[in-house]
């Protein structure tokens, strides 16, 4: 039977054994991908996978590897494993205990790994269900392991040819924290399987924000082969170490694609594991405060003796004042620019080096303007810090 399973693996066919079903797969494709901070690039990927399912549905183990090569010649390697074990807790209630492991390497520059243990409680019937989950573990970038904790809640609804999912989670990785509100759907139209995800990253401190969405179509080509076309934008995954990006991909899948209620993921989506971390080893972190209403621009004079021109862009303001170490912290009213009604200007003498500044518009609170490094001051407020070179 073991030989049969290996043959099945080689041929991309599912093999049922007395101890469960083994389902191998192989994805290969090409993509145009635009990671945040990078130029658009072409890439080719090969991703073998294998999944073992318990014969009575008590659990599964899946593993996947991805080799991704960019047109620059750089390559990304990624391997991950996921296992879950289910237990009946009560009628309609099931418990799940899972383990996820992964590691990746991008161009021998950055290495990343994670290990997560999670527990879920499911409440379900034949057509709908929901779950509550909590996860703990560790995510490492180089030699800097950081604790991971996630709480999540979700639900699903199943129809004859469609399934809809929705979830909300809150993740903590070191001192990075963020939430994702996600919805996704799978729709069968004839032989074509359509999948889509729409989500928003919110309440984020260090993991980016914004709306994202992906869509894919899987078209069976006969036998165990399917064509997959996918595209969209996905957010940074702080736990597994992929950075945000957009992509359009096409590829082939050899082997069963698997079904059932699970989070849809485009098969040929290339995600080089460019590690990231937004939490310090010592837990230190500058405060990330909401954007200020005013933006500061600093224009040094030609010589160190010349006054420095400060311009505050504050749309709709009637009065704009600044206060800083270069005014001995006396409020100074700026004058409206003659050429731009939203700009307020002033000339100040200041020494080279670090300076602290606050801005007040229309008699409101003192705030740190955008264009400066916002820091907590010593007085339960914020202050903008800028460097005059």
């Amino acid at each position: 039977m073991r030989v049969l399973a290996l043959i099945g693996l080689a041929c991309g066919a599912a093999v049922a054994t007395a101890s469960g079903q083994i389902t191998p797969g192989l994805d290969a494709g090409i993509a145009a991908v635009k990671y945040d901070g990078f130029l658009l690039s072409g890439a080719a990927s090969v991703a073998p996978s294998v999944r073992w399912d318990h014969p009575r549905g008590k659990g599964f183990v899946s593993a996947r590897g991805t080799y991704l090569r960019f047109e620059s010649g750089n390559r990304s390697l990624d391997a991950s494993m996921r296992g879950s074990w289910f237990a009946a807790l009560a009628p309609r209630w099931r418990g799940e205990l899972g383990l996820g492991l992964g590691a990746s390497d991008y161009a021998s520059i950055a290495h990343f790994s994670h290990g997560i243990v999670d527990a879920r409680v499911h409440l379900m019937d034949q057509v709908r269900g929901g779950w509550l989950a909590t996860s703990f573990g560790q995510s490492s970038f180089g030699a800097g392991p950081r604790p991971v904790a996630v709480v999540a809640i979700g639900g699903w609804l199943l129809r004859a040819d469609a399934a809809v999912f929705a979830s909300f989670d809150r993740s903590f990785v070191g001192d990075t924290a963020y939430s994702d509100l996600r919805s996704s759907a799978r729709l069968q139209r004839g032989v074509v399987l359509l999948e889509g995800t729409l989500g928003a990253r919110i309440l984020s401190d260090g993991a980016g924000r914004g709306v994202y969405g992906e869509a894919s179509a899987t078209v069976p080509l006969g036998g165990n082969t399917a064509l997959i076309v996918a595209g969209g934008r996905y957010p940074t995954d702080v736990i597994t170490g992929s950075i945000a990006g957009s992509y359009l991909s096409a590829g082939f899948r050899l082997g069963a694609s698997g079904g059932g209620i699970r989070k849809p993921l485009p098969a040929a989506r290339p995600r080089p594991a460019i590690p990231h971390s937004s939490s310090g080893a010592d837990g230190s972190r500058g405060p990330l405060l909401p954007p200020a209403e005013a933006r500061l621009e600093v224009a040094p004079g030609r010589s160190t003796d010349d006054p420095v021109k400060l311009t505050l862009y504050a749309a709709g303001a009637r009065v704009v004042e600044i206060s800083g170490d270069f005014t001995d912290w006396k409020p100074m009213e700026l004058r409206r620019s003659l050429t731009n009604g939203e700009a307020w200007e002033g000339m100040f003498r200041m020494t080279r080096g670090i300076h602290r500044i606050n801005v007040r518009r229309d008699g409101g609170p003192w705030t740190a303007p955008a264009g400066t490094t916002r820091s907590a001051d010593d007085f339960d407020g914020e202050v903008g810090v800028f460097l005059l070179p």
Partner: protein
Amino acid sequence: MMLAALLLVVQVGVAAQDPRLERLDPETRSVVVWVVDSARAVGLPSEPLIQRALEGATKGAAGPRIAAAVRRLATDLGTARTALSQRTSAPELEAGVAALRAGASPEVLTRLRDARRPPLTMALAVLADLVASGVPADSASAVVLAMAPTARDADLVEFRKAVERDISLGAPPGASAAVRAANTGIRFGTSDAAQNPSQPPRPPSRP
């Protein structure tokens, strides 16, 4: 000791005449003057301390809060000077305090002093900015230390701007610093120097 005490007495008279501190209530002013003069007596710059007191007054902070802030800053200035050098300039010390408060360790400041010719103001300020932007302190320290031996101040500023741009586009701070550092030839997370760090960081490249 006698000389220090004498200096202290003399300096108290000088600082007490600083008209700017009259914005403080008498009790707070006396504490601030004492801290300022003590700092000056040991060679620390007094102007940042006065400015911190004035900042608190403008923001309507309570007297004890202002005094505590000035004391804390004096302590941090001393820590920065110990880590850097007795000959460190006031702007460098202020930048050093910013870096320490951002999360850099005194050891990092010392290594930076050993790796780069003065003035260190820009390197320290960039380090503080990176951490304040969300780059982990250890990662920011590694990058700045790697660039420090040969990078110009302008290179450091450009690097910081590039990371800020990435962050504003939604990139995780640590990832941005890693990628930008890699683009300059720095092996992120190691102490390898850049291959040619005097060159400004390259624009976004293909992955």
